[in-house]
Every structure is written in structure tokens, then in C-alpha cells.
């Protein structure tokens, strides 16, 4: 695909144009050390060196609370609700693109989740090569440091005021050319982009799995009865934070709410998490994962084995968000997987 060179001074005009038709989200600083994708407005300072967006981009495609249907209690008629505002996510790091690709596969596969599909179709993903690495991230060692598809444009900052932009889709190219005059990237610029990537990849290797990530499912298969699950889960608050901040977690609960006349209502879904105590509880209160260690282990198996068995990738992209979010300090896939590796060292 084509790669262009774009200069910082072109951005305000481009952003302005885009935001006429799209909600545009860009990385910005929330407070010292915290960044997130926020709605762009002219003059907003973009945090080019953000290490990780505090909230994962899944919220744009799979909002925390989303109406699925409306219903009428008197007639028992139900209608679907679709909401898919056109939006551009500018500045999505490759590991987050990878997470979105995974959501695409899992939510669009089988019986496609139409609500997700529609939002996804209305969303333009502009990937962005990170310049810095969060202290809890380990994406380079789980195969999520680079991404080959799933973006419309891929931006790499090659200098204080210049970017290379790799085109990933016709839509992306069209958006880029809105202000006219596209300059193809020179060989030198491309080399600059390659170096920028190599630099950050090198830095990201600081936190690494002690083994090839593709071994994880086989490793876990041996570790169902590991004492580690109990050791860590004793501290588990069952708060679900690790699930909710995870860019690849998409479990949800479904509930009804009726209007004050008790006539019409909305059925909506809300983020849920397998670490919450009642997640696997059925009517009559039988809980199929009653203990913290059952739930804790389930999460790591899901990330390290179940998803892999389905689609050939880890369910963890190494963003490190759960490591930060866990107040008890027990959510850390890197640490857990490495410790399990050590535990089974005599076998390999």
C-alpha cells in the first residue's frame, strides 16, 4: 500500500475537515502520567508521546451501556436499536488495533452482533506508532507489537513535525486527501518510520515473557491445578477492573428498564466481567465459579488459551492496563505466565 508523508502543520486543517462529518477522537493528556483518547477540538494539544490510552478503545465500538431493543409491554412488540455514529479514532496504538481485530473476529463471527458490526463499520481507525512504552506494558513479547491490518491509516512520527502515513484502506486514503496535495513518502522517510518502529519495539522488550508467547496455551494446559491461582486470588477483590479495562474483554449482561408509565422500555447491555462474583451464577443461586480462584484462573485461561484455541492469537495484547487497574496488584498476565513457566521449568 501507498505511504505518504504528512506534516504537522497540515493536521489542524485535516482534523477540522474530518470533524465536520465524524466525531474525531485524539490522544490527549488527562493529568500528569494519564492519557486518553478525547474528543478533538481546535487548539487541543495532542499528546504525541502518550504511552497508553487510559481507557481502551473498545468503548467506542462496544460502549459500557448500549440499548439493544425497545419494547412495548402492552403489545409485546420489540424493535432493534442501532446506533452507529461516524467516528474517527486517531492515535490507536498497534496493540489496541490488534485488540479491535480480535473483537471483530469474535463478535462478527457466528451470529454477528449487529450492534457491534454497525458501530465498527462507521468507525475509521487511524493507528499510530507509539513513541513511549508504559511501564506495565509487554505488548512486544506477546506478538502485538505490530499489526498488518485493521487500520485505515497508520501514522508514524518520523520527526518533530513530520509523519509517514501508510494507507490501509481506500476510505483512509480518501480522508487523507481531503485537503489535497498528497506527497508520497520518500525512501528516506520510510526508513525513518522503520527506525522509529525499531526504537520503540526495542524499548518495549524491557518487559518480556521468558518464552515464546505461542507456548502459552500449552503452558496453561499443564497448570490447571497450579497453586498460583489460589495464592494470587486470595487478594482478589472481585471488582472486575481487570476485565473492564481489557481491550479484548467483551462479556456483557442484559437488563430491562421500563419507563415511568410502565408501558414501554429498553433492553440494554452493560459491560460485565468474569471476575465478578455473580458472573456464573444462575437462577436459584447456584454459582458455577464460586471461588475467587475459579474466576481468577478462568480469566487467565481465557486470555492465554481459550481465545488462542479459537483464533490462534492470545486474548492478551500486553497493553498493561489491567496491571495498573488492579488495586490488589494481582492482575498481571506477564507475571502470571512467567511464574507458571518457572513452575513448570522442570518439564521443558
Amino acid at each position, binding site marked *: 500500500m501507498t505511504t505518504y508523508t504528512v506534516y504537522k502543520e497540515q493536521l489542524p486543517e485535516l482534523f477540522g475537515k474530518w470533524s465536520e462529518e465524524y466525531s474525531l477522537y485524539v490522544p490527549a493528556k*488527562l*493529568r500528569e502520567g*494519564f492519557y*486518553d483518547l478525547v474528543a478533538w477540538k481546535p487548539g487541543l494539544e495532542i499528546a504525541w508521546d502518550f504511552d497508553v490510552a*487510559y*481507557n481502551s478503545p473498545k*468503548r467506542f465500538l462496544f460502549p*459500557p*451501556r448500549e440499548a439493544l431493543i425497545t419494547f412495548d409491554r402492552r403489545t409485546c412488540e420489540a424493535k432493534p436499536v442501532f446506533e452507529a455514529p461516524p467516528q474517527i479514532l486517531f492515535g490507536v496504538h498497534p496493540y489496541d488495533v490488534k485488540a479491535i481485530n480480535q473483537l471483530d473476529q469474535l463478535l462478527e463471527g457466528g451470529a454477528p452482533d449487529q450492534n457491534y458490526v454497525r458501530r465498527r463499520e462507521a468507525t475509521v481507525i487511524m493507528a499510530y506508532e507509539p513513541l513511549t512504552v508504559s511501564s506495565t506494558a509487554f505488548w512486544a513479547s506477546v506478538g502485538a507489537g505490530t499489526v498488518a491490518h485493521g487500520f485505515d491509516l497508520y501514522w508514524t512520527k518520523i520527526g518533530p513535525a513530520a509523519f509517514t502515513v501508510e494507507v490501509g484502506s481506500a476510505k483512509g486514503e480518501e480522508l487523507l486527501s481531503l485537503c489535497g496535495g498528497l506527497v508520497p513518502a520518500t525512501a528516506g522517510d520510510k526508513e525513518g518510520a522503520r527506525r522509529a518502529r525499531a526504537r520503540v519495539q526495542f524499548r518495549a522488550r524491557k518487559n518480556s515473557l521468558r518464552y515464546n508467547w505461542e507456548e502459552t496455551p500449552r503452558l496453561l494446559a499443564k497448570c490447571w491445578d497450579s497453586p498460583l491461582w489460589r495464592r494470587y486470588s*486470595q*487478594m*482478589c*477483590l*472481585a*471488582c*472486575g*477492573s481487570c476485565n*473492564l*479495562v481489557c481491550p479484548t474483554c467483551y462479556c456483557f449482561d442484559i*437488563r430491562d*428498564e*421500563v419507563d*415511568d*408509565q*410502565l408501558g414501554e422500555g429498553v433492553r440494554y447491555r*452493560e*459491560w460485565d*466481567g468474569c471476575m*465478578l*462474583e*455473580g458472573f456464573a451464577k444462575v437462577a436459584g443461586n447456584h454459582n458455577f465459579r464460586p471461588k*475467587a480462584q475459579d474466576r481468577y484462573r478462568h480469566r487467565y485461561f481465557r486470555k492465554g488459551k481459550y481465545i488462542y484455541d479459537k483464533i490462534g492469537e492470545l486474548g492478551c495484547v500486553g497493553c498493561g492496563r489491567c496491571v*495498573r*487497574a488492579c*488495586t*490488589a496488584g494481582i492482575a498481571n498476565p506477564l507475571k502470571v505466565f512467567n511464574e507458571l513457566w518457572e513452575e513448570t521449568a522442570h518439564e521443558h
Partner: protein
Amino acid sequence: MAKPKIAFFDFAGCEGDQLQIANLEERLLDILGHVEVVSFREVVTGHSDDYDVAFVEGSITRPGDEERLKEIRKNAKILVALGACAAIGGINCLKNFQAENVYREEVYGAHARWYPTYAARPLKSVVKVDAEVPGCPIDGAEFARITKDLLLGRTPWVPDFPVCVECKQAGNVCRYEMGRMCLGIITRAGCGAACVSQGAHCWGCRGLVPGANLDAARIVMDRPGTSRKAVQDLLRFFLGDTGAAL
């Protein structure tokens, strides 16, 4: 079907929860269209002892309260605890950590011995409570939802997960990552993480989440820069009647 009759009562508390309901204004009229209010001091005059649903606000702080509450329980088919004081004892339980003569003199001065009082407690310590509208104050929208659930013959749903869930949904930066204390990790959600979203931290007004891991929570809260006194004060603030308070 005859409209269910509802009545409001209060014990030791500020009536702030009933005020929250009154503040629903137009929504209140819609909801009240499905019921007959026989007693609601904040909104209507008059009183009757013929009711199906009793909303009870405030904690039980005097031996004499028990009799009145048991009478309400006897009359009502459904008894709903309204607000933190009624549901979990709330801030009234702060006095439980003081000597009786100290708080009695503080409140009643020289006439202290005329007023019998005992450790503050939630309604459920005295009678069976069918449903709770937690919070200090309650959230009007949640009151509306719970009332609608009752009208639909459904056991009201209140979240059984901690505030962290709603904080993550809201996208808030975790207070602990900012080096601050927060009770969201053990407190029942349902407020939409209101306090944290406003820049404060969770005080625990909605009571403990079922199955709260208090041992872990104490270790989490015991961080460099936080005094044990500060942790204790926070845990006593609303959760004095629970196992969380030290």
C-alpha cells in the same frame, strides 16, 4: 387491579432520601400514578395505617423505635429500607464507636438521662427487610427503578458488584493510581460512581458489596502515605455497622 398503597416513614435520619424522591417532581407524578400514597410527610398531608408497601428511612437508635418498626412491618406486605441509615445504619453508627455517656451528653446536654438511646443499627437488625434503596442520599432514578420493579412484581435488582465496575464504565482515573484512598473496591455499585466522577472518592454509602474481600481491601488501603487512622475513619463513616469498620 387496585393500586398498591404506599406509605413513607422515618426514624433517625435527615429525611434527605424522601426529599430526593420529592425532587423527582414530574417523574414522581408518573410513578405515583400507579400507586396510592397514604402517607408521605414531604409531599402530602394525612396518614393511614392501611398500606401495602412501606418505605422506611432512618436508623433505629432507641429501644422505643423497635416497636414502631415492628408495627410497620406487620402492616406492610413489602418493607423497603430507604437510604443508607435504614439499609446499613449509615453515619448514625458513628456514635457506636463512642461511649454512651459521651454522645448522649453531646446531643441532649443536661437532660441526657431523660432520653433512652442505644447503638444505632439498620432496619434489618430489627425486622425483615424486603428491598433496599441504598445510598446517602438515595439516587432518585434508582428509587424510581426499584419502585417500578416492585410494581411489576419483580424482586428489585440492585448491583451485586463494586463501584469499580461503574468507575471503569465511566472511564474515571482510579483514585488509587492517584495515590488516594477510595472505598469503591468494597462498596456496592449503583450510583454510577457518582462521587469519583465528581473528583472525590467513594465513601461507602451504599454499603458493602456481597462477598466483599475485606482482608484484601485493608491491605490495599494500607499504603505508604495513608495513616491507619484515616483508613479507620473512612471505614467507620458509613460502614460502622458492618464488618469493615475497625
